[in-house]
């Protein structure tokens, strides 16, 4: 019984299928965005998703977050079908998604207050997370006063403060300059070392995909499908050494690039982007 509990994946996707209408009209053409996705994500596992643009990776993440509903198939959290956003899953957004009218601390407290945490408890949880991402001096600042990297730290603090054990991250460092991104990646490694989170992390960046992941999910497009799942066998903690210099890193990265490259060339041969 206990083993069965341990084996229950944090998230399971069963036969996810999603189509989109191309316009608002009633008889508009539809495109198949995701076709029969079956996947499971183990507890504490870090999965990065990579694939050409238009492969439906963001749609997949939004379906896992219950921000969108699939036409067919189910999303299970800990073995239970979910249809609405829940407190176990927290999302980190590409454009940070901070409320511009709220201060840093109010942004971080927002999900906690929604879940009816008492003011004092919400505040102390928020302060703790803001400290952890090193922004305690900016608690009362507004988002527009912060750099992109700092804003995403707030986004991360907000997700962590909810206490969610599943983090859904949609290209969280995509809009951040290269050097800050390196720091954020290190921080991500550290956080995952300290508190075992189940993370699903979309990225365009091959290095990032390999560096952070226990497992890389490579998707292909037209319609979006799982092309390959690759285990990344790099020792942890990874912030303690130069991951890029490791042999396994080069192997996985090389393989991923080979596959992605073929997909991209096929795409341009079809004459659409």
């Amino acid at each position, binding site marked *: 019984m206990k083993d069965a509990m341990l084996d229950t994946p944090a998230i399971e996707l069963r036969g996810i299928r999603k189509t989109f209408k191309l316009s608002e009209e009633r008889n508009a053409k539809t495109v198949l965005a995701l076709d029969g996705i079956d996947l499971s994500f183990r507890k504490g596992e870090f999965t990065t998703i990579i694939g050409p643009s238009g492969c439906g990776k963001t749609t997949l993440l939004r379906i896992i977050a219950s921000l969108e509903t699939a036409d067919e198939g189910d999303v299970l959290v800990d073995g239970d079908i979910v249809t609405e*956003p829940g*407190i176990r899953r*927290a*999302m980190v957004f590409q454009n940070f*998604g901070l*409320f*511009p009218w709220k201060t840093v601390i109010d942004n971080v407290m927002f*999900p906690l207050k*929604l879940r009816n945490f008492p003011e004092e408890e919400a505040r102390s949880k928020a302060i703790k997370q803001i400290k952890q991402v090193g922004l305690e001096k900016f608690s009362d600042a507004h988002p*527009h006063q912060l750099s992109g990297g700092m804003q995403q730290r707030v986004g991360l603090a907000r997700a962590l403060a909810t206490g969610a054990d599943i983090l859904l991250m949609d290209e969280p460092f995509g809009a951040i300059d290269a050097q800050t991104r390196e720091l954020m990646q290190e921080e991500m490694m550290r956080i995952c070392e300290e508190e075992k989170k189940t993370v699903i992390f979309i990225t365009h960046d091959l290095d990032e995909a390999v560096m952070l992941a226990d497992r890389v999910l490579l998707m292909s497009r037209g319609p979006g499908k799982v092309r390959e799942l690759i285990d990344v066998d790099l020792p942890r903690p990874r912030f303690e050494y130069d991951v890029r210099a490791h042999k396994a890193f080069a192997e996985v990265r090389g393989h991923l690039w080979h596959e992605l490259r073929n997909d991209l060339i096929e795409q341009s041969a079809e004459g659409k982007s």
Partner: protein
Amino acid sequence: MKTRSNREIRRDQIVGVLIFLTIWEITARFLDNKLVLPSVSQIMAAFWDLLISGELILALSESIWLLVVGLFISTVIGFILGALVARSRTAYWMLNPYFSALFATPTIALVPLVLVWFGFGFPGRVIVVVLAAVVPIMFSVASGLRDDPKDLVDVARSFGVKGELALLFRVRVRAALPVLLAGLRLAAGRGVVGMAVAETYLRLGGIGGLIKSYGSLFQTDYVFASILPLSLLGITIVSLIGRLERRFHWS
């Protein structure tokens, strides 16, 4: 030009007022005609008289009450119609021409109709204020809610905000608040004009009534003494809303 500190601005304003009042006083004494141009000191005496007799306080409270009720009703109606127009293209094309027409029509032109339909009592006066003030509110709500902050709505939903109404008020209205308050400020200015029109063209009352009745008695000093609080009322309301705007603006 160099940027000015608040203190320098205040100093400039005070000096400006003093120069203006001095020129006024000199001109008035030179003309020596109380009917055409009473002197500053005569106006002040009239103002003091109105204040002591309680006439001014009474009129002012009547006017403020009319303005508050009128602006409140304008806000409710303007918000509902504005939200409708922002969310539905059909409603937009059906209603927009009427609102544009109402915006362009001087409120005073509608007074005879209001008189016939609603009488010259309080309801009629409120209607005049609403006719003057509702359109800017409706326009600002419509334009503020039209740019949908889709990303932020997603954020709110992902952290557990449920239902269209909750999303409307917690995210969409909040994001549009600077635009909505700018509309309210414009509406308040027009509302003051509507109020004065209602008070002078329907049954006399409030500050508008005071101005009109002293005008027909040719007591020009008392007319000026009544115009003064009317202007102050307008300035106060508009600057209060301006202060709110700064409070809720984030950049």
